[in-house]
């Protein structure tokens, strides 16, 4: 039994402490926008924010998360898909299959909070999530749009 603060709500979850946060979010909290891709911190499909920091939730045990830690998932990024990253993603039709995009959007939102006008090099360094459909070119462009550097 653990308490998790997900998208501003306190949730009781019945899991063993070594359960990855990813699976607690998906299976107990019931928010499935956060995806499983590899389980070994390689692909970023499971990216969420914990206290504002980008985290690959597949390798974070629930036992290591405090009830006061603020977890934000893709569902909590904005209530109306109005986060600048979401708007830029829509404007450039970034997603193909879409499966990786929750993670990509969470990674981009975390980047922009730290670096509101990232350079290409900073985008290269920060955006290391895998997209098997290969939407990288549009992701880069959409980060610039979200940062207000470029028009969509």
């Amino acid at each position, binding site marked *: 039994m653990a308490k998790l603060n997900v998208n501003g709500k306190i949730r009781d979850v019945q899991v063993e402490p070594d359960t990855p946060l990813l699976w607690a979010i998906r299976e107990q909290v019931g928010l499935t926008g956060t995806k499983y891709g590899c389980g070994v911190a390689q692909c970023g499909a499971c990216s969420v924010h914990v206290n504002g920091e980008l985290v690959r939730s597949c390798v974070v045990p629930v036992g290591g998360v405090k009830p006061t830690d603020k977890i934000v998932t893709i569902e909590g990024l904005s209530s109306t898909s109005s986060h600048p990253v979401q708007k830029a993603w829509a404007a450039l039709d970034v997603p193909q*299959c879409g499966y990786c995009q929750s993670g990509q959007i969470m990674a981009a939102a975390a980047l922009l909070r730290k670096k509101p006008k990232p350079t290409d090099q900073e985008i290269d360094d920060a955006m290391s999530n895998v997209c098997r459909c290969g939407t990288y070119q549009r992701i880069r462009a959409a980060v610039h749009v979200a940062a207000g550097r470029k028009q969509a």
Partner: protein
Amino acid sequence: MNQNLSRRSFIVGTAVAGGGLALGVRLPFGTPAEAKTAGDGVEVHAWVVVKPDDTCVIRIARSEMGQGTRTGLAQLVAEELECDWKKVATESITPGENLARKRVWGEMSTGGSRGIRTSHDYVRRGGAAARLMLLQAAADEWKVPVGEVSVASGVITHAASGRKTTYGKVAAAAAKLTPPDPKSITLKDPKDWKIAGKPMKRLDTADKLNGSKVYALDVRLPGMLNAAIKACPVFGGKLVSYDETRIAGRPGVRGVVKVNDSTVAVVADTWWRAKSALEALPIVWDEGAGASQSSATIASHLEEGLTVSEAYAFRNEGDAIGAIQGASKKIEAVYSTPFLAHATMEPMNCTVKLSADRAECWVATQNSEASLAALSEQSGVPLEKCEVYRHDLGGGFGRRGGNQDYVRQAVNIAKQFPGVPVKMIWSREEDMAHDFYRPISQCKLAAGLDDKGSLVGLHMRISGQSINAFVNPAMVANGKDDRQLQGYTARPGDAQLGYTVPNLLIEYAMRNTHVPVGPWRGVNTNQNAVYMECFIEEAARAAGTDSLEFRRALMGQHPKHLAVLNAAAAKGRWGTPLPAGVHRGIAQFMGYGSYSAAVAEVSVSGEGKVKVHRMVLALDCGHAVNPDQIAAQVEGSVAYGLTAAFYGECKVENGRMTDLNFDRYQMLRLAEMPKVETVIVPTFDFWGGVGEPTISVVTPAVLNAIFAATGKPVRSLPLKNLKLV
């Protein structure tokens, strides 16, 4: 008809690529009697539902896996329907519905880049038929000849009287009319297209941005259990035993299931608990004969095929061997390409619920009718009592087509839990260990040049595994497997070789392995383009001729191939100066009915590190239904192709795959993505595919640029294994 017989025929009919056994008479638009309830909408005919607020719901039969077919097909229907694009929605029909209505929606299988090119005609007729019915209904209401009414964006006008109405208002009356004979319909000239042919935004983006899209992996049903699965890691091995007592009492565990003779699953309340218990379950395997196989034994098996006297002569024109022997200059090379995994981002998964007289399945599939057939066959529930709820795929790339192995497994697990939905999810490790891999091959090539540097003879011998032999050995008796020679055919149409060589011998020596193989985005065009286009580059260099000019000289009889090559060369500024250290490579190939060419700009550092700076890809797919989505597919094909070129390799040791997760099976990431420029040169005289064709030219263009940079040809992949300088 005998039920089992009909099920069997259906299965056979749907399993054959591009097949489609006629099951009864296909009625082009269905009948009002069988119309599907459509909420508050009215089914005008099978393809189009109109709601009171004028929303037009377009039914989609093909699978959406990111390639944009949902939007493209809707554009084609909407174009002929003349509805308001802003009020278009789509609905995925199910294979059970298709079967019940005598396959009114036709083929559902989505592979081979066929989604649009094999259904454009009947979906456009569907849109046009609905328009004609809606106009007729308005004319009937106004008691005027239908020739006096017109429509724009779903608003119907009778100019003479100034009356107006909308599709939503006349839909109910239209649905009662008999649809026109599809053959009587004249489709629009693409020159007049207003919706099709335009870079419309995708219709399916919104729920991919906020986590609300439900993939098959996200299905949640009341009382649902979860299963984790493990098959014998050695292909062909068997399950001997497992010790259930060792995981008894673990939280949430509901049981251990022998899934089939090589596979075991643990079922629990949550997937994480099932997976953790499975990892703790002692399992004994009989690894079988395959355990002695490795990448090295497979390589020598293939090597032997390069020189044996027996091989299938796929093309034999003139006297290639004699011409090469007598040529003033001779070159030779051996190339090889490895097994590759699909690695869809969404791992294989399937949810099944079985009850006494009903079987249901929730799945991501490229072939929903094959899923339905697998569900029925495996569960023993008659087809008409089965249903597949298909979810858009988190990646397909050929993995989720005909095999349906995951559906069969999930059914076997669910059999142990009657009435309870069970969701089976493969771990990434299982996904990498039990793919149907891109087949491995090697290619030995020889060419002869005359004293002017013209290519007088070309001999290629491919030795490698056959997809068809794995699927159905009877299809490829005597080793004659044309599919493995994709891209080298003489006849025009699907995958024609763009060169005319006076003396040409192309042979295939089938060398199968114990590793399961299957189609992988672009299938055999990928390997075959590397062999052809990299060796042509070697020939051009041996001749001392510019790469583009050398190719052009061979392409006089292939104007479409040539036009695309020229388009890539022009946009890629072939022949113009580049920054110091940057080099160009070029390639062209045909597959899936479309012509592709690429120019790559590449540098190789002093340490041998390759950077791809820019790639220009040109594509003639005949009709371009959505240029922006075509560009997206081209961009994606560059990432998929470069992943293969740089990193892709499934190694075999002790009969099993060794690289089971993304830490060892690396993929291209954003930082390595070049700038991609897409040039679409549609000629509007044929319909070609989009999802797959361009991937074939990505790798050879890059390898040829590396050749230009280092002076040495690259003959094996992936690049990460090579010392380039």
